[in-house]
């Protein structure tokens, strides 16, 4: 017993030793910096970090800033559309591909392809396609439909939807693959059983297969959710927050206040609100899902 006990603790020690660098790096660079940002948000930091306490003044300035609210609500519009679009289309495509026997690999590749492009390239390409003076609008007008109008990219009310569209185009493939793998891993006996009962295929997917894929859905929501909060590159490449600041998002707002405007305190406050929002949404969902599984 003693020997075994010793061996276990020695192994543990080794495991801990091996983990320490990663833990230190993660704590320092992620949690350390996050804590430092939170700290900066209550200081008088403007151009450079400043350690004078400033109370909630930065938050007050943030909440009085019309621009922040535009960016903040855009995060929800973008996030809602992005999650719904990617998961809806991803699941749909996964089911269609699952029905196609034989050509599966071909279609899988086609739909996964956008994923291989960076979001910056995605944004740039869609910027050209959607730009009314050089893109779709111009082509359709030249084809004879003179009064054709498609100017969402440059319309303050619609620009955020073009960003969601480009991001969905980019992200759907990944979600499709996740769900396809999930569908393939369900028990094939289900199909035999349901065929005997003459249950239509769509019903099998909706009522039997998809409910088994809660874990896949959780993964998809988590992956996409993080993408929403750190959405930056696609916005910069597609609209750069414009027209004006109509399609701004919190990540870009924080970046601008931190690095370009020399308002580090207010930028940090924005970052804190951004993360707090995410935690407020994600934690209850995670808690609910994990409780369910334990039950």
């Amino acid at each position, binding site marked *: 017993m003693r020997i075994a006990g010793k061996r276990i603790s020695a192994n543990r020690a080794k495991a801990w030793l091996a983990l320490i660098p990663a833990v230190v790096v993660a704590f320092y660079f992620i949690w350390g910096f996050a804590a430092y940002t939170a700290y900066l948000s209550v200081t008088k930091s403007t151009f450079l970090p400043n350690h004078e306490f400033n109370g909630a003044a930065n938050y007050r300035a943030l909440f009085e800033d019309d621009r922040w609210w535009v960016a903040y609500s855009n995060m929800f519009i973008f996030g809602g559309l992005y999650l719904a679009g990617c998961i809806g289309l991803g699941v749909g495509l996964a089911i269609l591909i699952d029905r196609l026997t034989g050509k599966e690999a071909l279609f899988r590749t086609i739909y996964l392809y956008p994923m291989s492009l960076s979001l910056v390239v995605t944004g740039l390409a869609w910027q050209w396609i959607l730009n009314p003076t050089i893109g779709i609008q111009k082509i359709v007008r030249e084809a004879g439909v003179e009064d054709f109008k498609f100017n969402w990219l440059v319309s303050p009310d619609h620009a955020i939807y073009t960003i969601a569209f480009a991001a969905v185009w980019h992200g759907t493939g990944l979600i499709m693959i996740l769900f396809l793998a999930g569908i393939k891993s369900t028990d094939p006996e289900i199909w035999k059983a349901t065929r005997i009962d003459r249950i239509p295929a769509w019903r099998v997917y909706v009522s039997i297969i998809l409910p088994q894929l809660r874990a896949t859905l959780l993964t998809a929501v988590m992956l996409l959710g993080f993408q929403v909060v750190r959405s930056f590159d696609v916005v910069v490449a597609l609209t750069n927050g414009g*027209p004006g600041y109509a399609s701004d998002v919190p990540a870009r707002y924080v970046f601008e206040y931190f690095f370009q405007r020399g308002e580090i305190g207010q930028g940090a406050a924005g970052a804190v609100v951004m993360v707090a929002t995410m935690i407020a949404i994600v934690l209850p969902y995670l808690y609910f899902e994990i409780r369910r599984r334990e039950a």
Partner: protein
Amino acid sequence: MSNGLNPGAESAHDNLGENRACLPGGHCGGIWQHPEEVEGKTMKILSGTLAAGGCALLALSVSPAFGDSDVSHNWNSENEAEAMRIFRDKYIELGGEWSDTAFPDSEASIASVKARFIGGNPPMALQSALGGVMRDFAEAGLLQNMDEAAEAGGWADNISDSIAAVGRYGGHWVAAPVFVDVINWMYTNNDVLDAAGVAQPDTWDDFTASLPALQEAGVVPIAIGGDSWQEAILFDHVVLAVGGAELYENLMTGDAATVAGEQTRRVLEEFAGLRQYTDEGKSGRSWNDTNTLMITGQAAFFFMGPWAAGGYGDLGPEGGSWSCRLTPWDASLTVVADGFQFIKVTDESDMAAQVLLGNAVMDPATQIAAARAKGTLPVTTVAMASDFEGCPAKAVEAMAGSTSITHWNGRSADVGNAIKDTASALWNQAIDVDAAHQQLIDKL
């Protein structure tokens, strides 16, 4: 250089590719990095090592030793790089070793300098617009006191008192102003105007009256891009139209009665009214792509700083197919000084390099040559209108007889941001004139 502003530039250009022989001062050439090559790190290290090796042999006879110049800047267009080359040549001639880092824009260079300062490895100098940014840097304690060097080098000898004041913070020299950029230019494509039967407008009313005709002729009346600073530059011209230099100055200094007054409201209304004479593609467009609209004859008017002039070389000489004019409806000039801020360093050789850099860029002849290359004006009072041609000559001439006011880019960041934010929000229909007026009252 395609703009024809710098006939003297060719000889400097010819020397470039070759390795310079070692100069009498004991410093070897060839270590200077072409701004376009800055990203090629290997090149830099390689040539740096070679030159360092070569110089080490000669360094025994040289004192004091200079650290390399290590200048951060955003002079990356062809004209600007040429101007930097001229400063570099002077610096090497005075006995220094040159190195620099180019950034795509001043926001990037400023962010880098801040980060390097916090990290304990600041560059020696930062080229940028002087004014607001310099004040921020000075207040944060990032700048070096250069009083001794300025005294010994006679920096104040050939510049006006007002420009000398730009280089000082709290009475101490912290920067070397080298150029005065006159911002309020109006570029016109004269072929487009002729085709639409529109004459060069001399008043604001002429100008606004010409816009519908141009639109009917199927061209974009006003070329503009999607950055808030571009929108704010157009805003400048409207301010000058409504109330001239006095209104501009009072707005920028946040004079409460002016900001809340009727004139400010009219500025906002007139500005918002121009929107219908622009094209849909403006959102997100850079200033140089917008300039291309002008050069290719798709647009008639473009309100942009002196840096746009370089692009019109393909259309022939100024006054033919294209013109550059200072705001025709007002005699004022909006100006911002450009120069080198000296960052606080502690190493003796780095400080010696800063003195050398200051002396090199404040040398009147060098400044004139560099200004000609860049297509702007030097701060030195030695410069004559006859030293220039094209747009800068017009600016030199205009300077003698008109009021110069500091552009928002030369003022504190708060003022610049207030103008940019409000102009942009109104322009992009995020807010209406009432809300924009209120926003100016709150922010200025």
